[in-house]
């Protein structure tokens, strides 16, 4: 294979991996702490992309506008995540996991139509901010600056999350709830508030990921299910509840998708399914997951 093509694919795969990581980290965090599988995670991502479109039109396409929009989208999604938890998901905590799945599945339908109602059916695209336009010369061509920004952003988000979980008091509390919710509750920690916070954090991550992804992908109906499946595959491969697993798996999936496109343009997704199938047979709880936790 030509080195320049390989490099290009590698970089675009990393970009994809960055977005996937930001989304999957929220999903895996919510699962690790609240044991809830949020089917509507992809719908929230779709909401984030569409909201970016709206906020960018509001704040203007310049550099300042871009950052304002990113912040606004992240904040909005954090609020929505918290509202969903407090208003709906909280009611099905103790129940049969089937009920939780159905609830979040119902949300997929609802949010999908809300998006259709508010924004219509024509795809919405946004352009990159001017200070991130242009390309970096690499052997064989140039690689978009914006994509490098996304990769850097994902790395920063990952580092920030890790620091927060490992060093801060909030992170310590989150890990405590993830390890044993009953004991943490018995120790006097306000667990319900913490759960809401975790959902808000998940929403924040989706917001950042969606806002970052908006210039790269058009907002179109149907993107919710497309991305949620990929996110789940990342979580399955990486291991539910593991941040490191989400990072490694996102990398694997992103790169596999990019290189897979070279070999089987129409069916690159087959490689990802093959990887997932392989992991499930050899290590069903994921690369970094905990056996018995399902």
């Amino acid at each position, binding site marked *: 294979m030509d080195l320049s093509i390989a490099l290009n694919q590698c970089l675009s795969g990393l970009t994809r991996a960055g977005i996937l990581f930001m989304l999957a980290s929220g999903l895996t965090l919510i699962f690790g702490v609240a044991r809830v*599988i949020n089917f509507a995670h992809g719908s929230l991502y779709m909401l984030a992309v569409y909201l970016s479109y709206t906020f960018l039109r509001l704040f203007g396409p310049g550099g300042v506008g871009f950052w304002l929009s990113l912040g606004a989208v992240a904040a909005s999604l954090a609020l929505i995540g918290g509202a969903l938890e407090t208003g709906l998901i909280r009611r099905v905590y103790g129940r049969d996991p089937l009920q939780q*799945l159905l609830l979040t*599945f*119902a949300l997929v339908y609802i949010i999908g139509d809300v998006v259709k*109602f508010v924004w219509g059916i024509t795809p919405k695209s946004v352009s990159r901010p001017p200070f991130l336009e242009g390309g970096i010369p690499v052997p064989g061509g140039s690689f978009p600056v914006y994509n490098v920004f996304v990769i850097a952003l994902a790395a920063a988000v990952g580092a920030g999350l890790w620091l927060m979980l490992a060093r801060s008091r909030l992170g310590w509390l989150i890990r405590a709830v993830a390890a044993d919710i009953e004991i943490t509750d018995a120790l006097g920690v306000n667990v319900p508030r913490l759960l809401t916070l975790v959902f808000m954090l998940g929403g924040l991550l989706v917001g950042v990921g969606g806002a970052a992804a908006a210039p790269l992908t058009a907002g179109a109906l149907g993107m919710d*299910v497309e991305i949620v499946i990929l996110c*789940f595959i990342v979580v399955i491969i990486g291991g539910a509840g593991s941040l490191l697993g989400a990072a490694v798996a996102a990398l694997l999936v992103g790169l596999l998708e990019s290189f897979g496109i070279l070999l089987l343009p129409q069916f690159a997704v087959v490689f990802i399914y093959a990887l997932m199938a392989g992991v499930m*047979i050899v290590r069903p709880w994921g690369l970094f997951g905990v056996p018995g936790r399902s």
Partner: protein
Amino acid sequence: MNGSASRCRRAWWLLAAVLAALPLAAPGFHLRLATEIAIMALFAMGFNLLLGYGGMLSFGHAGYYAVGAYTVAILTRKAGLPFASAFLAAPAATALVAWVTGFFCVRLRGYYFSILTLAFGQLIWGVIFKWTALTNGDDGIVGIEAPALLASPAGAYYFTLLLTGACVALLWMIVQSPFGRTLLAIRENTERTQFIGVNVNRLRLCAFVLSATFAGVAGALFAPFDGSVFPSFAFWTRSGDVVMMAILGGMHSFLGPALGAAIMLFLDHTITAYTEYWPFVLGTVLLCLVLFSPAGVTGLARTVAARRRAADRPA
């Protein structure tokens, strides 16, 4: 006790008579709706073997429905095979696909199982959508014809009714069999079932393949009935529809899903006249069901009946 049993039987005979006589009384449109309800009822009841009896929630069942439909379509329109062979090949093809995908899915529990079925369902959709040489992709395959005898509304109705009835009888047999009992045990306590000597994964796979095959038969019935097949048959929203039918009608009753199918189709035909936001309505209904009446309509009916019986009892 005896009175209610014979009353029950008389109700069944009455229902059978009504169903048999329908073509004489109902105009074409209603007959077509009844046929469609029968097909969807089969789809939903087959699906419920997995959900209600096995405790496994599959979000990709539409994939198998589509495999059944497309097998008939491709074999009759592209390979020129006679309808009968195509129709017999459909459940076989579906069973094969279900066996391959199910092999991976049944090894997982709970959420993981559901997610993987969704993923495979979308994979099937993707294959149908992109393999244009075989499936015509987004254009779909049109002009599927059933043999003359089954082409008229009444003919199609009776054919569907007969096959659906046969499948329902098969389902009843499965549910009453040792296989069915063991499936219930897996639903109730999967780990314990291993420890009574049952190869749980193998039994789950069998249930999965059976459930998917019924979906494939439903698809095979739909193809000649409607005349055309499209990739959307495999899309996740179709899978969501059948989940809705089972939950709405009541997943813990044998005929609940059939009732759910009837309700859904009625709503679909009436509400879509008023709004294009049918998914929103569906999502809200599902949300309300989950929050307030997880046992669906039959569950509600049972609760009301139980309350009435309690009220009727002497104080």
